[in-house]
C-alpha cells in the first residue's frame, strides 16, 4: 500500500506542477517583444527588435570570410567604404566621404571619414582600410576574389586610400560589396590570434556591437554609444537575431508578435498574412534569380534544338503563379531586371508545347522518349515545386524527368563529375550578386573555366568569353557602354538556350507594422540596416 501511495503522490505532484506552470503561462511567456511588460528596469524600456532567421545567424564571424546570410548581422556591426543604391544607381558615402578614379579606370582614390571609432576604441584611418582589405586578400576565403583587380593599396596620408589596379574595374562597386568589403580594427586583429574573429568576436565601426551570442543559434546586438552618426532620434537599443528553421514557426512568431521581421515564408503564408492588420508586407525587386542549367556536354542536351524545345516546354506562368505566388517575373536572360546590363529586349521563350514538339521532332525525337535528371537544393520548397511543375509538362512530351533534391554539396559534386555522362541533365540554382555587376552572373555561370565551379552548362565558347571579358574591362571606364556589351553576350546565351531563365525573384518582406524605417536594398540581400529603423 505504501508503494502505491508514493507513486500516486509523485504523479499528483507532477501534474500539479504542470498545471500550475501552464496556468500562469499566457501572462509570462509569449509577450510581444520590446513593447512587453515584465522586466526589472522600470525607467525607460529599451527598444528591442527581434529577427527570426531561417538558418544559423552567422556562419563565420570573420568579416573577411563570411559569405552567407551572416552579413545580415555583420552589416550592422561593420561598415564598408560606400553603400550602393542600385535602383538609383548612386553611392551613399559611409566610411569614405568621396572618391575619384582615373580615366583608364586603373587608379581609384578614396577619402576616409574623420572621427570614426572602432568598437575597440581605436580610430579609423587609411591604414586601417588598407589593412582590412589586404587581410581579406591574404586569408583568401569567402568572397576575397572580388579584390582580384587590386594590384596594390597606397596610403599617401591618414585619410586617403589609393587603389592601383591590374586591369580596369568598378572599384566603387567592389568596395560597396555586400561581402568581404568590411573594414576592421587593425589593433584588434593584430593583438589577437588569427581565429579571434571566427571564435565570435568583432571589431567594427557599425552602429551596433555584439553583446552576446549562442553560436549557431542567436545573436544579441546592442547599440555602440560612440557611433559616428550619433544616436539622436528614434533607434533600437538592441537587436535579437534568432534561428527558427521551421517556416511555420517563423510565421506564427510574426503573427503573435514574437518576431518583428522574418524571411522566406511561402507564398501561401504571405497570402494568409495579408489579412493580419499588424503585419506589413512589402514586395521589393531583387537581384536574385532562379536559373536552370542544361548539361551541354551530354546527349540529348548537347543539341540546341532539344534545349530550345525544353525551353518552350517550361511552364513559366504557372511557376511564377503557383510556385512563387506571383512574387516573381519571368526572367529575360541571366542578368536580373533592375541591374545594369539587364537586357530588356532579349528574346524570351514562352510556354508552347506545340513548338516544343516540333523542335523535338526536328531534333530527331518525334515521340519524346527521353529520360532526364534534374537536381535542386533539397529543402527548397520553391525549387521543388518548380521541378514538379516542369516534370508534369515534360510528361506530356513523353519525357521522363527524374527530380532529385540534394544537399548543396552533393549536388555540386555531381555537377563537377569528370565524366559528363555522370552529371545531371538540368541543374537548378539561384544566383545573386557579390559585387553588383552583370559580370558576376556571366563570368561565373557562362564563362569557360579551367575547372568546373559554377559553369554548369559546361560551355567553352572563346567568342562568348571575349564578349564578356571586354565588357567587364569596359565597366571600370564607361558603365553604360559596358552594359550594352553585356547584353550582346546574353543574346548569344539566350539564343543557344544554354539554360532555363526561370524568374527574377521579388523579395517579399514580412514584418511587424510597428517596425518603421526599413528599406530593402537588393545589393545587400536580406540586410536590415537597423540604424535607420525604429519602432512606432
Amino acid at each position, binding site marked *: 500500500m505504501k508503494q502505491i501511495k508514493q507513486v500516486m503522490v509523485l504523479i499528483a505532484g507532477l501534474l500539479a506542477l504542470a498545471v500550475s506552470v501552464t496556468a500562469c503561462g499566457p501572462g509570462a511567456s509569449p509577450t510581444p517583444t520590446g513593447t512587453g511588460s515584465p522586466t526589472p528596469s522600470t525607467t525607460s524600456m529599451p527598444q528591442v527588435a527581434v529577427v527570426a532567421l531561417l538558418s544559423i545567424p552567422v556562419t563565420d564571424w570573420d568579416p573577411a570570410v563570411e559569405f552567407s546570410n551572416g552579413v545580415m548581422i555583420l552589416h550592422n556591426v561593420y561598415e564598408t567604404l560606400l553603400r550602393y543604391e542600385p535602383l538609383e544607381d548612386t553611392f551613399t558615402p559611409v566610411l569614405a566621404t568621396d572618391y575619384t578614379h582615373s580615366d583608364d579606370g586603373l587608379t581609384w582614390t578614396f577619402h576616409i571619414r574623420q572621427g570614426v571609432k572602432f568598437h575597440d576604441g581605436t580610430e579609423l584611418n587609411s591604414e586601417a582600410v588598407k589593412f582590412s582589405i589586404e587581410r581579406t586578400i591574404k586569408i583568401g576565403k569567402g568572397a576575397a576574389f572580388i579584390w582580384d583587380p587590386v594590384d596594390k593599396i597606397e596610403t599617401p596620408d591618414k585619410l586617403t586610400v589609393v587603389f592601383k589596379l591590374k586591369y580596369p574595374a568598378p572599384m566603387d562597386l567592389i568596395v560597396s560589396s555586400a561581402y568581404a568589403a568590411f573594414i576592421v580594427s587593425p589593433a584588434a586583429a593584430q593583438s589577437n590570434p588569427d581565429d579571434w574573429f571566427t571564435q565570435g568576436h568583432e571589431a567594427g565601426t557599425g552602429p551596433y556591437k555584439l553583446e552576446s551570442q549562442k553560436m549557431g543559434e542567436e545573436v544579441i546586438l546592442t547599440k555602440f554609444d560612440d557611433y559616428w552618426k550619433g544616436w539622436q532620434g528614434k533607434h533600437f537599443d538592441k537587436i535579437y537575431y534568432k534561428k527558427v528553421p*521551421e*517556416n*511555420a514557426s517563423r*510565421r*506564427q512568431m510574426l503573427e503573435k508578435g514574437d518576431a518583428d521581421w522574418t524571411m522566406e515564408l*511561402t507564398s*501561401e*503564408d504571405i*497570402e*494568409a498574412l495579408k489579412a493580419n492588420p499588424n503585419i506589413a508586407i512589402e514586395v521589393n525587386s531583387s537581384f536574385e534569380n532562379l536559373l536552370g542549367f542544361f548539361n551541354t556536354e551530354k546527349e540529348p542536351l548537347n543539341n540546341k534544338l532539344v534545349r530550345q524545345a525544353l525551353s518552350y516546354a517550361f511552364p513559366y506562368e*504557372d511557376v511564377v*503563379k*503557383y510556385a512563387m505566388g506571383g512574387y516573381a517575373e519571368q526572367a529575360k536572360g541571366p542578368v536580373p531586371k533592375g541591374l545594369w546590363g539587364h537586357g530588356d529586349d532579349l528574346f524570351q521563350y514562352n510556354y508552347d508545347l506545340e513548338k516544343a514538339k516540333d523542335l523535338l521532332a526536328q531534333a530527331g525525337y518525334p515521340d519524346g522518349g527521353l529520360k532526364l535528371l534534374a537536381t535542386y537544393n*533539397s*529543402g527548397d*520548397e520553391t525549387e*521543388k*515545386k518548380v*521541378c*514538379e*511543375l516542369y*516534370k*508534369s509538362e515534360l*510528361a506530356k512530351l513523353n519525357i521522363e*524527368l*527524374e*527530380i*532529385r*533534391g*540534394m*544537399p548543396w554539396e*552533393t549536388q555540386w559534386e*555531381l555537377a563537377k563529375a569528370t565524366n559528363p555522362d555522370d552529371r545531371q541533365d538540368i541543374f537548378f540554382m539561384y544566383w545573386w550578386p557579390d559585387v553588383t555587376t552583370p559580370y558576376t552572373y556571366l563570368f561565373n555561370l557562362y564563362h569557360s573555366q579551367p575547372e568546373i565551379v559554377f559553369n554548369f552548362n559546361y560551355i567553352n565558347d572563346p567568342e562568348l568569353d571575349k564578349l564578356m571579358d571586354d565588357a567587364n574591362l569596359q565597366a571600370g571606364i564607361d558603365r553604360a557602354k559596358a552594359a550594352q556589351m553585356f547584353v550582346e553576350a546574353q543574346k548569344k546565351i539566350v539564343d543557344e538556350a544554354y539554360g532555363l531563365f526561370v524568374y527574377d525573384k521579388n523579395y517579399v518582406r514580412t514584418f511587424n507594422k510597428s517596425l518603421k524605417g526599413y528599406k530593402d536594398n537588393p545589393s545587400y540581400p536580406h540586410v536590415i540596416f537597423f540604424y535607420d529603423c525604429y519602432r512606432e
Partner: protein
Amino acid sequence: MRKLLPVETFEAIKPRLKEFKLTFYLLNRNRLTMIAVITVFLLVLIAILAPLIVPYKEHVISGTNPQEKLLPPSQEHLFGTDELGRDIFSRVIYGTRISLETALAAVGLALLIGVPLGAIAGATGGVVDEVIMRITDIFLSFPPLLLAILIAAFLGPSLTNAMLAIAVAWWPWYTRLIRGQAVSMRERQFVRAARAIGTPHFKIVFGHIVPNTIAPVIVQASMDLGGVILTAASLSFLGLGAQPPTPEWGLMVSTSRNYFLNAWWYSIFPGLAIFITVLVFNLVGDGLREVLDPRTRKY
C-alpha cells in the same frame, strides 16, 4: 529499442499448419491484437490494389493541377488537395504501397546480409566468428536511426538509398540472432552427420544450418516492419528518402510543414497513415512476441 526474442523461443516454432493455427488462436484472445491483424491484411490489400482504387491515378506519378491547390476535403477530394492541386487521398492510398514495399525490401535486404553472416559466424566459430561478431558489434553501437541517416546522406537522397541505409542499419540484429541459433545447431546430430560424410562447409551452412534457423529470424523481421516503416518515413522527412513527386508519407508530411497552418488536412492524413500503419504492425509484433515467447505464452 528492440527486445530480441530469446533463442529458445523458437525451438517450438516449426512451420507446421497446426502451429499457425495455434498462434492464431492465441492471438485471437486479445481483441486489440486481432483488430491489428485484420488491419494489416487490409493494408496489404490496399497496397496491392492501390493502382486500381486511387481516384486520381495521374496525381501519384507526374500530374499536377495547380489551379486546385490546397482545397479542403470534399467529395471530389476526400483528403483535400496539396500545394500543386494533387488529390491527397490518392497519394496517401498509393503511399501504402510505397511504404510496405520499402519496408519489405529493406528488411529483406537486411536478412540477406545478416543471415549468411550470422550463419557462417555461428557455424564456423573461431577467428571467423570473432571477426564477424566484432564488426557486428561496431554496427550495433551506432544508434540505428543515426546510422541510417548517415548512410542515406552519404549515398545521396533517394528512396532506394534510404532502403539500403535502413538495411545496413538493421542487418547486425539478424546476424546476432541467427548466430546464436547456428552455434547451438553446430553440434546437432544431423550437422555432425553431414560433416562426417564430408559435406562441404558451405553446403552445411546453407543447406542445413540456415534452413533450420531461419524461422525465428523471419518472425523477428516481421516484428520489425513497423519500426522500419517509421524510420523510412523519418528519412524522407529529413529529405534523405523518397524524392518528389513520389507519394511517400514521410515526404508528404515534410512538405506539408510549409502549408499546415493554412491546410491542416495536408499534414494530418499522411501523418495518420504513418501512425496507423506503424501502430498495427507494432501491435501485431507485440502480440506475436507475447504468444511465441515461452515465458509469457499461455494456452
